[in-house]
């Protein structure tokens, strides 16, 4: 419960602080100017990034806007007290900021409907092999992130695979357009700093839902920020005084590519659920757990068990008594 207290108290502190800040100006700049396009609209005062080598990227801009909204609006909810079994279920979902997250989810779904989905549909004019090539280029371009985190997690073999893939796909695969390395028996894998933090034993933190970026956890916000400022080649590109809209365009293509690749899966999930937000939350957290375990199956001990020492999937009816058929005697 400690983190709840911290969130609640920091909510109050920040609301006090922001009374003195030119908040409308900040949000306006971030929301409509800096946020996506990266065009310099003059505001840098509240930025946590000051070094030349830690330039903001579209991802960190989104995250800063999101965290500001979180401190302004997102105060923790308490577990419901009317149902004796609700607090345990509430704890299992790990979503103390649910009201805030749900409003961010609404915003995200709105943006998805009016912006992202139409863009994905337009993007699909490009033939599938070309789209596949673009996906591969993006995967290849972000492989330094995977490599750095392979190393930070002490995964020597996987780091070797990442290096080999980067070299093979950048050359034989023509700038990463073709995943030749997979055919050589070097399968793709994905690592990020959020997973590294998990491997180091850092707690998941509360569940979060950010517009455009989608479901996250407190740990993933830190992970995304670190990756996006340090290991991400698009950040390096920004350090070299290149126009910022290059990064913004790349980020846009990345969002559309990711959304396009998940199109069918998300569509199925949406149609088969009665609470899509809760379904996304559960599916995201399970997917992250699987990535952290590097694909190993979830151990049975990790399953939520509601009676002590009982199999969570035990039969609800005792087995009927065994009746021996004595055909031969008859």
């Amino acid at each position, binding site marked *: 419960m400690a983190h709840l207290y911290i969130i609640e108290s920091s909510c109050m502190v920040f609301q006090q602080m922001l009374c003195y800040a030119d908040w409308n100006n900040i949000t306006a700049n971030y929301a409509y100017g800096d946020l996506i396009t990266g065009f310099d609209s003059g505001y840098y005062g509240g930025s946590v990034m000051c070094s030349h080598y830690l330039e903001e990227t579209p991802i960190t801009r989104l995250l800063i806007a999101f965290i500001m909204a979180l401190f302004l609006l997102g105060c923790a909810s308490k577990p419901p007290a*009317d149902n004796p*079994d609700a607090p345990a279920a509430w704890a299992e979902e790990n979503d103390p900021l649910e009201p805030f997250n749900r409003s961010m989810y609404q915003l995200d779904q709105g943006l998805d409907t009016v912006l992202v989905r139409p863009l994905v549909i337009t993007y699909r004019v490009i033939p599938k092999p070309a789209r596949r090539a673009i996906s591969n280029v993006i995967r290849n371009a972000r492989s330094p992130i995977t490599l750095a985190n392979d190393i930070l997690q002490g995964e020597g073999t996987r780091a070797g695979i990442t290096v080999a893939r980067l070299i093979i796909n950048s050359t034989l695969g023509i700038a990463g357009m073709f995943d030749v390395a997979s055919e050589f028996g070097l399968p793709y894998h994905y690592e990020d700093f959020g997973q590294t933090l998990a491997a180091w034993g850092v707690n998941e933190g509360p569940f979060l839902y950010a517009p455009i970026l989608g479901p996250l956890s407190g740990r993933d916000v830190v992970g995304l920020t670190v990756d996006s400022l340090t290991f991400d080649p698009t950040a390096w590109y920004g350090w070299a005084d290149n126009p910022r809209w290059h990064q913004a365009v790349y980020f846009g293509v990345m969002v559309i590519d990711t959304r396009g690749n998940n199109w069918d899966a998300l569509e199925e999930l949406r*149609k088969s659920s009665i*609470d899509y937000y809760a379904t996304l939350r*559960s599916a995201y957290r399970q997917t992250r757990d699987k990535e952290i375990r590097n694909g190993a199956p979830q151990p049975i001990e990790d399953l939520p068990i509601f009676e002590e020492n009982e199999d969570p999937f035990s039969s*609800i009816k005792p087995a009927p008594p065994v009746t021996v058929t004595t055909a031969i005697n008859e």
Partner: protein
Amino acid sequence: MIYIATKNRPLILLLIILILSLGCRPSAASEDWSRDPKAFVQHFADIGISQILESDNPKTEKTEQFRQLFVEAFDIPAIGRFVLGRYWRQTKEDQRTLFLGFFEDMIVYTWSRRFGQYDGQTLRLETNVPDGKNGALVTSSIIDKAGETFTISWRLRQRYQSLKIVDVIIEGVSMAITYRQEYSSVIRRENGIDGLIDELSSQVTRLKETAAATN
């Protein structure tokens, strides 16, 4: 001895025929699949692919075939209890029956919408590890025509007559856990199981309509 043998010759002959026929009958083979986790998954996957997905039967018939398969292969009450989790104890018998009925319908109609999407995918069994006190976790790959694979694991439990599936884990996402967390959210929002049952029932109606509309 000889006396007994000659006296009971017809009976012994019958016994031998019986034993021999038991050894060759297909039902003896079906005993294997009901106890061996990998064979169990293969058995139901084969039926699902050859008799439902690849058949030319009308959709309504396929849906009913799928329901039979689902009821036979899955331990729906055990899944239902896991899905309701802590709330299971609070539910009355008639609520449980209602919930399990709609839950079954929901899954049947959710999957029946996807029959048309089948395009020659095959199932390859990978590993089989012990799971829980009397169960197994079978991991398999689904391979499509383009050679792309994704992983599905099947959580099985030994029941009285046969193994039963209690969870399907698609690329690390457990269906049972996902429904459990979704429904606990709905129960909290609707202030009880009756609200969940209502929402499930209208979802089933919706799914039925779209299933009838597509194909």
